[in-house]
């Protein structure tokens, strides 16, 4: 393993320090791995917070700022943050208008956020929770953990954050977040595994001619191993699964995201976007906006995910609203 780190145990702590050094408009809560907007709690505004394991940068703290998140809790690499830290985040960002927690559907995240919400509620904070589960690779069923939350989460941050910035109350902000969850689907793939600082070697082994389809964002193997394919074939596979699940009708409008897993050159993501847009064109689906970049990564993994979000006028307005964060800036 070769990494630009000092020691595996210090990665999260030092990364957070380096982040605050680069973005002095963020603030680290003393003795925690929680970053918040420097001006948190923001008077008169519902707070939108998120959190989860580290290793997905710019997720989560990269989306702190005007028009997106108020707080972001960083767990160890790929390990959800502990409930007490989540509780501190909730308390520190609540301005009395309540806090919406955006949680990706993993039992660890859900259980810790649940506990934190209970703790915060005991202190009189109004807390709502939205669980994102956009990953179509995983079968959804009552008897299982359901679908994972992956890159579509960024759209939830953006829309809920914009709604809160526009003065929406906790109910309205939560409703927007749920609307995004209902309308976004994602599927991902990996060309290579990733190397966590603690383990120091690839989480799974992939042959030179193999890829993983249906991966999450934690270096876990995917739902299926396949022979290497061309970028167009891969894009087709991901996109078709996403579109079939979303049941889009001709003429509907979408916002797309080609998300890099961390180790993929941007040029390759654009090659994927090229095919994605041509598939949408062929199906008579209109792209209102196309996002291409590293939004939610898995350390150094090579691969990508394709997300499609069905949008209406409300979501378009929220997606287009200004945001100013280290990881995403939208200007009017």
């Amino acid at each position, binding site marked *: 393993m070769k990494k630009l780190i000092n020691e595996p145990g210090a990665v999260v702590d030092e990364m957070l320090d380096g982040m605050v050094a680069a973005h002095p408009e963020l603030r680290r809560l003393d003795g925690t791995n929680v970053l918040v907007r420097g001006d948190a709690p923001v008077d008169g505004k519902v707070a939108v917070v998120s959190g989860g*394991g580290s290793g997905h940068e710019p997720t989560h703290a990269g989306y702190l700022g005007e028009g997106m998140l108020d707080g972001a809790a960083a767990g*160890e690499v790929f390990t*959800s943050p502990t*409930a007490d830290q989540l509780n501190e985040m909730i308390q520190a960002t609540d301005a009395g208008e309540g806090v919406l927690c955006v949680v990706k559907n993993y*039992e660890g995240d859900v259980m810790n956020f649940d506990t934190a919400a209970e703790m915060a509620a005991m202190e009189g904070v109004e807390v709502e929770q939205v669980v994102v589960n956009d990953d179509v690779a995983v079968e959804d069923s009552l008897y299982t953990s359901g679908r994972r939350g992956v890159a579509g989460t960024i759209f939830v941050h953006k829309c809920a954050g914009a709604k809160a910035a526009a003065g929406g109350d906790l109910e309205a902000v939560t409703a927007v977040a749920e609307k995004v969850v209902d309308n976004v689907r994602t599927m991902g793939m990996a060309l290579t595994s990733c190397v966590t600082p603690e*383990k120091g070697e690839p989480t799974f082994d992939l042959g030179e001619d193999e890829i993983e389809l249906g991966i999450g964002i934690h*270096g876990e193997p995917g*739902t299926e191993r396949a022979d290497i394919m061309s970028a167009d074939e891969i894009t087709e596979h991901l996109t078709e699964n996403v579109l079939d699940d979303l049941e889009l009708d001709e003429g509907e409008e979408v916002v797309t995201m080609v998300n890099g897993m961390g180790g993929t050159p941007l040029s390759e993501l654009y090659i994927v976007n090229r095919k994605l847009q041509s598939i949408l064109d062929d199906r008579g689906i209109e792209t209102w906006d196309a996002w291409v970049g590293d939004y939610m990564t898995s350390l150094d993994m090579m691969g990508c995910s394709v997300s499609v979000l069905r949008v209406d006028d409300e979501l378009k307005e929220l997606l287009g609203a200004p945001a100013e964060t280290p990881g995403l800036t939208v200007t009017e």
Partner: protein
Amino acid sequence: MADAETQREAVLDALDNVAERLAEEKEYLTDLDSAIGDADHGANMERGFGKAADKREEFAEMEPNEVVKNVGTTLISNVGGASGPLYGGSIMFASQELEGGITAETSVAFAEAYLDKVKDRGGAQVGAKTMVDALVPAVHTYKKSIEQDDLPPLEALAKAVDAAERGVAFTVPIKALKGRASFLDWRSVGHQDPGATSTLFILEELLETAEE
């Protein structure tokens, strides 16, 4: 029945042994978690129990049940992931059963409360390929050995360890329904569950400590 101090010392010894064992097994647990999860279970367990064991001095004046409770909260604050709230929250919750001291009877109540909380918090039944698969046979066996077979706690615990071992083996051929491994669907078949395995290790160390 041993006095509070002896009991506390026994709990602290057990804690040390568990922490040491989990540190030794860190890589093994992580490897299991690599196959069907996200390669952090070893680090999570080592970190959590390591932190708890480091608090020996803080624990020096506490009642045994308080020590146990504090181990639980320490895990909650330091583990994260799925195993943090499951191990930590359930230990914390079950520690109430030890308020009157640690006896054969209260240890059964502790075990049952612990199992209930894990099932409740995580929503997993037996057969979902989780720590529950190690816990259910262990707790059932322990309870029956003590309450119906009148075995001494040490023998009951030894039987529980055997039972947990079978539970761990049982996780291998089945498909995960809960936890990260469930995202792998059929690909999870053939792999041993990390959380069930760490549960077994902990039970083994409790037995080891009790035998000493």
